Each structure stands twice: as C-alpha cells, then as structure tokens.
C-alpha cells in the first residue's frame, strides 16, 4: 500500500518548518530512517502535537519497523479515536507485526470508516490469521462483492475460511462454483473434497481427494483424508499406504489404519496401530 497520509503541519517555528519539510521530503524519496530521525527530533520539541506521532508512525511503518510503528499509531489513535484511514494503516502495521487479533479490532474500525475492498480484504486476512474463520469467510465474501479484478481469489479465500471454520454448508457452494478454475490445484481439491466428504459422505469427496493426491503426493493432510474415505468405501488395501504416510502428523488416522489392517487380515498390525492410537490420544486428553 502506498502511503499518502503525511499530515501537513502548521504553527511551527521556522526551524521546525524546515525540519518538517525535510522529513516529508525524506518520506517521499523513500529515506524512511532519515524521516524517522527527523520526526523524533520534532516530537522532542513539540511533544503535544499528535500529528507528529502519526507521521512518525507512518515513517516507521514504511521502514518496516512495525513494532515501533504500532506504538506510535496507538499513541496517535488514543487522541484521535474516530474511525478513519489511519485505522487501516495501523491495522496493517499490527498485521505485519504478527498481532493479527489486535489488527482485527483496529481494522473493524477502519471498516466503519469505509467498507472498501481493500479494508475488507485486510480485515479478512486479520480474522483468518487470528483463527476467527467464520468472520474471515464473511469478510472475504464482502470484499469479493466489491472487487473488480480479484473476486475469484477472494472467493477462494472465503471458501478456505469457511472450511477451516468447519462451516461446510457455507463452504460447499463456493467450492462448487470455483471448481473449474482450480481443477489442477491440489490444495483446493483437498479442501473441496474434504468438505464434500464431511457434508455429504465419503463417496462424494473421494474423486476430488484422489485427484489432489495424484497432483501432490506430498500433501499429507490430503492423503489422510483420502485414506479415511477409502476405508469408509471399503477399499482397505488402497487406504493403508495413505494412512501410513499421514498418521505421523495426525495420530487420529491410526484408528482407521487399524481398521484397514484388520480388514485385510493383518491382525498384529491392527492391534499395534490401535495401541499407538490409544497411547497417543490418551496423552492429548
């Protein structure tokens, strides 16, 4: 995002005006460290001017010093709470600093200022990173409705968020609509197949999961989901290699693996898998 939010300052002494002008020039020319130094100098002289805090925050944000920028934004917003464009940049800065849940709260204010595609997209990203998947899905969809070029990408993100939220009725129509555009995307096929398997039954998801694993044999969660679906379909021998591959990352797969072993006459392997499953799950609970 290009920052055009530098606030012009008035009522400064001539020397301070020179410093402010130099700082603004440094910002325009991408010399953010220099701008930061100048704004800090001005703040020492005029600590009661909140707009200097904002300009400092913008310099820090532009210089990718997000943790420091967050503190400066917070200082400014404390005295300027009404929703406005600063909330968008402050939210972005929090998001960049890995504080997604805090970013969501600030970006919600930005949405009150302007529910634009950009604000909604950033808010959705913040929700998703904060694991607030239902809200993320809704925000991505709202952004998609306003989008001119990115609607498909935003709908894809919404579908993933609803899938992560385990809201399969909401995810399913999105996956269905987007299917033709992502027919060679292994992750899409996995999420879509998993949604169908859960919402409608294993048989509905099986073809998509098979295609996903065919495209990306290293996509372990997809192999786990495929293994489960194959066991449900009674294709035990085919399920075993997928479940063996995926169970180190997901111990719950040891149970269907045990079933598959049992069904194929591998009684000792079945007992061992079940024992591992019980031990693994017992420690988790």
């Amino acid at each position, binding site marked *: 995002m290009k920052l055009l939010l530098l606030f012009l300052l008035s009522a400064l002494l001539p020397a301070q005006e020179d410093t402010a002008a130099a700082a603004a020039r440094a910002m325009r020319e991408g010399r953010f460290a220099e701008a930061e130094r100048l704004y800090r100098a001005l703040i020492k002289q005029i600590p009661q001017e909140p707009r200097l805090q904002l300009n400092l925050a913008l310099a820090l944000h532009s210089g990718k010093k997000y943790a420091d920028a967050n503190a400066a934004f917070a200082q400014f917003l404390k005295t300027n709470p009404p929703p406005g464009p600063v909330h968008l940049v402050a939210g972005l800065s929090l998001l960049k600093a890995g504080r997604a849940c805090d970013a969501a709260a600030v970006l919600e204010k930005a949405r009150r200022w302007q529910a634009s595609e950009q604000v909604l997209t950033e808010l959705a990203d913040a929700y998703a990173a904060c694991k607030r998947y239902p809200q993320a899905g809704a925000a991505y969809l709202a952004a998609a409705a306003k989008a001119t070029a990115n609607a498909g990408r935003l709908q894809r993100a919404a579908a993933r968020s609803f899938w992560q939220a385990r*809201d399969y009725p909401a995810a399913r129509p999105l996956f269905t609509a987007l299917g033709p555009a992502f027919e060679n995307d292994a992750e899409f096929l996995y999420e879509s197949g998993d949604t169908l398997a859960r919402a409608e039954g294993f048989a509905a998801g099986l073809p998509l999961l098979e295609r996903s694993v065919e495209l990306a044999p290293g996509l372990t969660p997809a192999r786990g989901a495929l293994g489960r679906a194959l066991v449900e379909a009674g294709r035990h021998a085919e399920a075993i290699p997928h479940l063996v591959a995926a169970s180190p990352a997901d111990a719950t797969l*040891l149970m*269907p693996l045990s079933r598959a072993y049992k069904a194929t006459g591998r009684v000792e392997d079945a007992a061992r898998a079940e024992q591992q499953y019980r031990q693994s799950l017992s420690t988790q609970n």
Partner: protein
Amino acid sequence: MKWSSLNLLFLTLAGNWTVAPLGPVLVTGESVKKPLPATTPGGIAVFDYNNDGRLDLFFPNGGALPQGPKAPNALLRNNGNFQFTNVTAAAGLTGLDYDLGAAAGDYDNDGYPDLLTLGLRGITLYRNQGNGAFTNATAAARLDNRGRWSVAAAWFDMENDGDLDLFVVNYVQWNPATEQVCLVVGKPDFCHPRHYAPEPNALFRNNGDGTFTDVSAPSGIAAHKGKGMSVAAADFDADGLIDLYVTNDRTFAFYFRNLGQGRFEECAFARGVAVPQDGRPVSGMGVSAEDYDNDGRPDLVYTALRDETFPLYRNLGQEFEETTAKSRLAPLTRALAGWGIAFADLDNDGWKDILAARSDALSATGGYGAKAKEPPAWFRNQANGTFAHGAGWAALEPAMYRGLVAADLNADGCLDVVLTALQATPRLLRHPCQGAGNWLSVDVRAPGTRVRIGAQTRWVSSATGYASSYLGPLHFGLGPAQQVDVEVTWPDGRTRRIATAVNRAIQLKP
C-alpha cells in the same frame, strides 16, 4: 412469577406442534469468568412420583458459582390435560447444592419411585415416603460420591437380585481457585475439557436393606478415569446382564461389560464403540440406547459437538457397526451440536426416530456469540436404516438446550417432549397427535425388563439422554396394527405374553 399452579400457554409451530414454557428458570451461575459448571446443568426426570398414573416432572437446578445461593429444584405434579402444580417445597425436593442431573428409581422396592440428584459436589438420595414427600436418605443409605462432580446416573439391577444398584457418572475435577481464563475467538469462554483432570465413575451395590456399598474398585469401574457425561444401561450382548455405556467428553467412551458376580470389563475398543471409526475423538454428551433397526438388539446414539456428528452404532450382537454415515445421520448432524438425545417413535410408525436438544458447549456470550444457540431437531427413521429431517420443529426458538425427555404427558398416545435450556424456562413441546399411527403404552416399571411387540424390542431403563431420567410406561408406535402380541421378560427371567388391542395403556406385573 409464582409457579404454584401452571396454566401453560402453548404457541403453535409448523405441523401443529405447540410449545409452552414450563417451570422456573434454569440458573447456571455463568459469569464473565465462565466457570465450567455453568455450561453443564439441565437434566430432567420424568416419573410418576405419586403413582396416580400421570407422569410428573422434576428439574434439578444450579445456582451461583463457585458456591453461592442455590436456585431451587422443581417438582411439577401432573394434574392431567397439561395442568401442573409446583409441589417442590411440600415434597422436600428444593435441594441443597448446585444440581445438574437426576435419576428416578425405586431402590427400596416399596412401590414408590425414589429420586437421586447429581450435583457439582456430590449426590443426594431422596426417599419417596409415599405421601407426596421425600426425605434425604443419602447418609442413611451410605451413599458417598466423595464430593465428586457428578452429572448422570443409572439405576439398574447388576446382579439380577431384585433390587436396584446405582451407577454414577462423574465428570472432571474442578477447582474454582485454579480455573484458567480461556479465550475463544478472542473472548473469554468455557475452557476445553483437556484443562481438567478426569475422574473415575462410581458403582454402589444395593445391600437390600436400604443401604449401599461402594463397589467402584472391586467391580473394576474405578480403574477407568474419564470425563463422563451420560450413561446408557442395557443388555447389549444379550447375556442376561445389564451392561453400561458411558460417554466421555473429548476422550474415549467406556463400554462396561457386565461379567456377573459384581465385576465389569471395560471393552469399548473391542466392541467398536470407543470412538467413531474415523478416529477423531468426539465430545460425547447425552446417549440413548434403543433398537432403531428392529432387529431385537439395543443400538446406541449419542450427541457431540459441531463437526463431530452424532455417532450412531448398530448392535451386531457382540460388536457394533458404526452407521453414522450409512444412516445419513453424518451429513444431517455434521453442523450441529447436541446434548440431550432420545430414540423415540414420534410418528408412531413402529420405527424409532432420533430427537436431540441442541446448542454448543461454549457460551452464548462467548466466542461463538448467539451462534452457540440452536433449535432442537428430530430425525425421522425411514424404516430402511436411514434417517431424514423431521418436520414441525424448525420454528422453535434457538436456545442453549440441554436436557430432553420424550414422554406421553397427556396419555393421548403420542410422545410429547420436555426440554431444558440454560438460563431459560424449560419448554414443553406438545405433540399434535394427528395422523400418527396406532400405539400401545406398556407399564412394567422395573429397570432391565424387556418388552417385545412384533419386531420391536424395548428395555426399561431409568437413564436417558443427557443427565436425565425417564421411569414410566414404554411407548410403542404400531403403525396400522390393530391387535398385537406383547412379550414381557423381567430381569429374573420370568416371561409373560398377552394379546391386546391397540391404542391403550396396559400395566403388567410379573
């Protein structure tokens, strides 16, 4: 509002089902700190405490947390035609502490059903004196649950010696002083059960003289710690002894096979009922054991939370087959969260449907917000091993539903439904009873008794659903049948057969 006499105001739903509020508010003690017990109350007991032939209602109640004023329990006497009188005080059932569940059973064989309440800090046994009043007999009966948080219980005759023994389901260790604050979607909410240590369940053998002996350890029950939520008691393997199935919260369920001689073996994995077959552990909540496919064996269904489905197990004799997907219950329940549950033939077609009280375990003021509230639902048994959405309940208000018991409260031959919800008055769903099939009500009372009519088999069990109890006549939907043969087998093996016309209530004694 004074509840001494209740004139119910029914609102009409689709399909002419009607709903009315019933009794006092269920007080949970929920606060901003989200103390875990506040999400767990809501059991119901439906039993005929005064032997007048009408089913009465008991609602255990909570109170302030961590320890504060108790909200009084409620006993509603059924006067017939959906008229109830609150007789709690006269009956001496107001209660002592934070209560969650209840179980009715005649432990002293005097012909009057007694009542056990399950609470946050122990259990209380109320002996029915037969004159409308109960006395606290806990100490006299030597029942001591060691202050554990108990949720549900089953009265059952474990040795077929003619008196009722008691199995108590215990949940987790809870200490308000050390309880954490947990965040869900950025808001304080109830903590996941993994934050709490498990507890063993308890088994008390009836000594036949009004006292009990704690046999939890010698029976093998105490060796298994879980996070118990509910229990189903039935002779699952048809060996003449009542077995126990216990749902646990986010950990493996227990199947306690009754070996006789007061011994039990936990074999849920061997029987295929420890976890759903996909291996994902679920939050086992309420449970119901009935024969849904009319093959003569009791099957199992229990509620769980969102994305876990409500697992359904078909009894094959010695093992179970999970039929959640095959029965279509998986897609029907994938997006639901449930607590109380019952197999019950709502349309009297001779096939038991599934009824569920729904809502999330999380708070309606927590991370999920109002989405934690859900309406109840029922799933129609299509008589071919599959279920479909049942009609008529869609307009029911979403709430934090917990307990659910199906019972014919006005003796019209159709099952009404009693529901509890957190921080709300209980609800009575009145069955329209139009277009339903024929029926028969068979009153045998003694838990463990088996009743067969044609392909249908039912067992008397005091435990049902979540933290709840039903001790009344067995209801059979009969479709178009006009005349049926009834076979009753009591726990001691005595059997009686009679032929009878339909659409009536019969009472049979050994």
